[in-house]
């Protein structure tokens, strides 16, 4: 076995997290730079992974496999297909921006110099890196149990990030803010734990099934998929459906899918913008990714069986999320509901079971990550300036801070998936992919486009245009650091919107494999057009 | 010795049966006593009895060493320890058996009975044959036998229990030993403390004084005719034996005095025609005097009975 590249990608931030946490209290800035350096190094490694990955090659590459818990056939198995590569790249790409954007979020409040033992800043960045490590592992894990462990472990650092480093701009007084924050954090934790425990039951059930039929039980994704393909592992219909539900529930909570979404607005609203980005752009992607890799890979028949319901839920999420976004008064909650709507699109694409749908869904994960990061971070900068999350407190920002407004607008346009920006590509693919198999669903989903335009533009109009509102007059424009966060993201949005081919080339083969798992092929056009 | 050796043999003689039934009853009674006696001293004594009975049973079952140990260690050391602690805590305190925790008693009885019945039932359908007897086990002597296996098979357990004992001893010392860490206050400091706390500085005033008689249980009257708490000792106050006479007519006082003297068994002469005058109120007073006198040391109780006899004599004499 060659150099364990994937392990390295995951281990680097993990070590970095420990190191950052160990920085003495006085050297706050050093911790920040360390965190930034580590995240950048991780990005480099991830880039190496992306280049070493050969789209034409076999399905899982850069595989590593070691025994972990021999008694239960639990193995430390890593390996990436195109989807995994794309998402690992996304994660590694976003973290530096998250770190940079959160540069001052964990500083001690003015005047209060924390004592030697209490090191919030170090903790903040260490937790972010820890999350990165866990997310990367779960994107790379091809062993169900390994995946589960990190899928759940992720909650711990996230819990502290949400509960410990809330949005200072958020609420009137600190006490009430803290209450809101801990409420959000606990809600996040319990919600996801509940889903995760159901999944644990399903994981054990899966082990039982394999142990029952294959002699000794295994958690290895590849092994199970091959066994199913070769017919030496056959699940009873009900067993498979139950296991599928167990897995799907956990992912639907994480994703989040209507009606399991209510933790997201609280979590995103109360946490700082970078953490909110971490939640919606990185952590939640694990849910959709896992639907694609585990639900479809392990339980093809059950997936086919559940498709109508899942599609319905996805459609509800799309429309519902958009409508609620329109109704929001709080900028961050608005973005949160917008994300719910977008996750609806992702799930829709996944379960449309067409190459366009699933390819689109994968691109969507990446693009949504970038676009939401851009929008949310700019919103965060805006909020940190005015000290309020309420849309009503703004107005005319465009006049005093044109660059901020411009970037905000671009982020918003990406969110409403304007052609030329990355999300359009994925959203249209999802729509087309859905339409080819389920025209009605495709049409319903299309209305999400209009609603998206509505909430984005209403938000932009209320905050940025019109006469300059009170408290906005002195608002400074984007600073160097903030520009350094936003500009690359926007450049990326445009690049992926105009020339997404490199990404699609990586993703397509993986999608083909997934489709072959569920024994689906794209429906043929009724008229073979003259080419 | 031989007899008991036989008794420890496989067969059980009728003698042992008799012994069992008698002593067993005693043991059960003792156990019940332990649980039910109001005063813990009594419980302790009952327990000691039970333990002795058990010691006998041990001997009867050929566990000579244990029997002795039972008597020496348990009935001797442990029970003594109990008694010491009882003394520390206070012997006279008789705790009421009134249940304070809701439903506790019912639950306890229920569980206890259930458990007992199940146990008995279990033993009942357990196939207990006859005694194998300890003849060959005790062949080289019971103590030797025990020693052998203790120092061979059970040596580790033995060592550990030894360590446990030492630890326990140390623990007991640590727990009970109280070391004065701070310096004791000098008299001056105490005085200053009193002043600071605004306590009553001069000596306490004397109790109420009357022409004919003075009593510690009668509070002194303040200029405005009300009584002063300070003049009566703390104990009486807490016992509620203070007699507030500030509002009583002198005649009542006279009756009162007489009653008291009668109770204290002094000169009948003063007791003439006591019941005639005063009437009901006397009775009341008498009653509360009795109340006052009652429920302290049994001695008081006793000579109170004596008084009653005295009364009866007097009725007869008339």
């Amino acid at each position, binding site marked *: 076995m060659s150099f364990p590249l994937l392990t390295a990608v995951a281990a680097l931030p993990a070590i970095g997290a420990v190191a950052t946490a160990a920085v003495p209290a006085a050297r706050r800035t050093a911790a920040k730079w360390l965190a930034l350096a580590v995240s950048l190094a991780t990005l480099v490694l991830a880039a190496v992974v992306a280049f070493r990955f050969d789209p034409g090659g076999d399905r899982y590459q850069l595989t590593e496999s070691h025994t972990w818990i021999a008694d239960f056939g639990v193995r430390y198995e890593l390996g990436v297909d195109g989807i995994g590569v794309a998402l690992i790249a996304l994660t590694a790409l976003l973290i530096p921006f998250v770190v940079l954007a959160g540069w001052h979020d964990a500083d001690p409040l003015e005047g209060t110099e924390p004592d030697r033992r209490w090191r919030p800043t170090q903790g903040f960045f260490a937790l972010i890196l820890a999350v990165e490590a866990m997310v990367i592992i779960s994107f790379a894990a091809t062993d169900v149990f390994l995946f589960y462990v990190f899928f759940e472990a992720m909650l711990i650092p996230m819990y502290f990030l949400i509960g410990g480093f809330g949005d200072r701009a958020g609420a009137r007084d600190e006490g009430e803010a803290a209450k809101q924050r801990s409420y959000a954090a606990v809600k996040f934790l319990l919600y996801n734990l509940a889903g995760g425990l159901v999944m644990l039951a399903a994981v054990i059930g899966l082990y039982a099934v394999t142990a029952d039929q294959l002699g000794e039980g295994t958690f290895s994704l590849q092994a199970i998929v091959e066994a199913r393909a070769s017919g030496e592992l056959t699940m009873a219909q009900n067993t498979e459906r139950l296991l599928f539900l167990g897995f799907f529930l956990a992912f639907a909570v994480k994703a989040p899918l209507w009606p399991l979404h209510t933790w997201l607005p609280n979590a995103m609203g109360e946490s700082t913008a970078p953490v909110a980005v971490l939640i919606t752009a990185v952590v939640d992607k694990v849910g959709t990714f896992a639907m694609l890799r585990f639900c479809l890979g392990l339980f093809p028949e059950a997936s086919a069986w559940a498709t109508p319901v899942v599609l319905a839920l996805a459609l509800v999420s799309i429309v519902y999320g958009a409508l609620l976004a329109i109704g929001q008064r709080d900028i961050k909650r608005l973005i949160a509901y917008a994300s719910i709507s977008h996750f609806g699109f992702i799930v829709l694409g996944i379960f449309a079971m067409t190459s366009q749908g699933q390819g689109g869904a994968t691109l969507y994960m990446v693009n949504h990550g970038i676009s939401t990061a851009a929008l949310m971070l700019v919103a965060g900068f805006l909020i940190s300036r005015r000290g309020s999350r309420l849309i009503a407190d703004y107005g005319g920002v465009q006049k005093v801070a044109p660059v901020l407004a411009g970037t905000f607008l671009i982020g918003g346009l990406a969110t409403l998936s304007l052609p030329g920006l990355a999300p359009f590509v994925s959203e249209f693919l999802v729509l087309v992919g859905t339409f080819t198999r389920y025209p009605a669903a495709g049409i319903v989903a299309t209305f999400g486009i209009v609603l998206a335009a509505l909430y984005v533009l209403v938000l932009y109009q209320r905050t940025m245009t019109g006469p300059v509102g009170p408290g906005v007059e002195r608002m400074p424009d984007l600073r160097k650091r903030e520009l350094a966060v936003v500009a690359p993201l926007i450049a990326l949005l445009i690049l992926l919107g105009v020339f997404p081919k490199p990404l699609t080339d990586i993703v397509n083969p993986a999608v083909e494999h997934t489709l072959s798992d569920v024994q689906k092929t794209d429906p043929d056009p009724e008229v073979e057009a003259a080419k | 010795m031989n007899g008991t050796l036989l008794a420890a043999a496989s067969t059980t003689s009728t003698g042992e*049966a008799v012994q*069992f039934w008698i002593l*067993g009853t005693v*043991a*059960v009674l003792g*156990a*019940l006593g*332990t*649980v039910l006696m109001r005063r*813990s001293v009594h*419980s302790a004594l009952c327990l000691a009895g*039970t333990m002795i009975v*058990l010691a006998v049973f*041990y001997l009867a079952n050929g*566990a000579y060493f*244990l029997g002795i140990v*039972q008597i020496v*260690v348990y009935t001797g050391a*442990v029970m003594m*320890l*109990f008694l010491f*602690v*009882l003394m*520390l*805590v206070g012997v006279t305190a008789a*705790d009421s*058996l009134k249940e*304070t*925790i809701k439903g*506790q008693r019912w*639950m*306890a*009885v229920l*569980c*206890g009975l259930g*458990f*007992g019945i199940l*146990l008995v039932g279990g033993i*009942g359908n*357990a196939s*207990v044959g006859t*005694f194998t007897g*300890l*003849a060959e086990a005790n062949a080289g002597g019971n103590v030797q036998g*025990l020693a052998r*296996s*203790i120092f061979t098979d*059970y040596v580790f*357990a*033995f060592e550990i*229990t030894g360590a*446990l*004992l030492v630890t*326990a*001893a140390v*623990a*007991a010392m640590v*727990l*009970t030993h*109280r070391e004065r860490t701070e310096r004791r206050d000098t008299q001056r400091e105490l005085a200053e403390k009193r002043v600071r706390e605004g306590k009553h500085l001069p000596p306490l005033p004397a109790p109420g004084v009357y022409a004919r008689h003075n009593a510690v249980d009668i509070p002194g009257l303040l200029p405005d005719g009300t009584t002063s708490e300070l003049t009566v000792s703390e104990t009486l106050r807490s016992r509620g034996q203070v007699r507030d006479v500030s509002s009583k007519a002198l005649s009542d006082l006279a009756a009162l005095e007489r009653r008291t003297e009668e109770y204290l068994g002094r000169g009948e002469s003063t007791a003439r025609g006591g019941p005639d005058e005063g009437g009901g109120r006397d009775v009341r007073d008498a009653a509360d005097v009795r109340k006052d006198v009652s429920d302290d040391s049994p001695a008081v109780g006793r000579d109170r009975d004596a008084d009653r006899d005295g009364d009866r004599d007097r009725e007869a004499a008339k």
Partner: protein
Amino acid sequence: MNPVNYLYLAALLFTIGASGVLLRRNAIVVFMSVELMLNAANLALVAFSRLHGNLDGQIIAFFTMVVAAAEVVVGLAIIVTIFRSRHSASVDDASLMKL
């Protein structure tokens, strides 16, 4: 006489001791009841050892005694300290285990 009687007796004593633990408030009496239970157990052990004709039962009974002695020492010490601090030997007064 049927040796099972000893076991019955042991069971009876044990149960009485148990209910004593449950019913009495005075820590010392509770302790005595515990001792009672231990003794009951010992009786059973001794009877067993005679039943099976080997000394293991007695040895275990012996260990039980030792442990019981240690336990009594510590327990009583605790009772004394508690009594010192709160002038009562009632187990209900020490009801701090409540949430």
